[in-house]
């Protein structure tokens, strides 16, 4: 019997699809950012990555079960601390920029931009959702957050095709952060 948490990849797939139809669903993705952080802060290590991350399972499913991965070894630089923490820094900087543009919409400096930005550069017009029901900043954050989720999915798929199914997990900012938090917490215990 499979356990419930082995089906979380479906949650990830549904999440990405829902956001496509209505951008406001993007907010749900905050769960995938806050849960791993909270769990590692309370001392559960990388239990989120190890057992509950739908995205990791999705790559495992596509790359492993559906054999969409070349299964090559990842280049050593990607697993280096420099690259992983560098990517984390870059990712969090861009995340901060996104939160700031949400703030600019919140305080009325900017108008709502209905675009999804891929790989921090490619802007896709994304205006089929009626977001009039919510404050513009709520919609703006949804666009920004969905951009982050889609961008990381694209990078993850790319490295899944080229290397092993869960190559994304080597440089995933959430994974790097939860490992970093665990290291700080259990510094003394490392053998």
């Amino acid at each position: 019997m499979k356990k419930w948490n082995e089906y979380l990849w479906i949650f990830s797939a549904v999440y990405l699809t829902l956001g496509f139809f209505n951008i406001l669903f993007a907010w749900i993705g905050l769960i995938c950012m806050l849960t791993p952080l909270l769990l590692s802060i309370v001392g559960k290590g990388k239990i989120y990555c190890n057992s509950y991350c739908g995205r990791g399972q999705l790559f495992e499913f596509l790359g492993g079960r559906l054999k969409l991965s070349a299964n090559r070894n990842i280049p050593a630089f990607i697993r280096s601390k420099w690259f992983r923490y560098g990517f984390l820094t870059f990712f969090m900087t861009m995340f901060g920029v996104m939160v700031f543009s949400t703030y600019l919409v919140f305080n009325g400096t900017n108008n709502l931009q209905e675009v999804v930005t891929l790989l921090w550069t490619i802007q896709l017009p994304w205006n089929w959702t009626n977001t009039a029901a919510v404050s513009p900043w709520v919609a703006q954050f949804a666009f920004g957050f969905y951009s982050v989720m889609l961008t990381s999915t694209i990078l993850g798929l790319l490295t899944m095709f080229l290397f092993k199914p869960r190559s994304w997990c080597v440089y995933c900012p959430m994974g790097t952060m939860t490992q970093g938090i665990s290291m700080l917490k259990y510094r003394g215990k490392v053998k």
Partner: protein
Amino acid sequence: MKKAKVNQTECVACGVCKKACPRQAITIFHGIYADVNEDFCIGCKKCQKVCPASVIKVIQKEAAL
């Protein structure tokens, strides 16, 4: 005897190896790195095949006296 060995300074603690191990020989030490219990490991290489960081390898170990 062949046993799995982890390069623990480069392991990302993703737990993919742990899932793949048929002998439950692997634990993730406090979210920091994978740890192999050599008493359980049978050297099947399943962990080595799936490790996305390529930091777990099955190597020849001297048999314990």
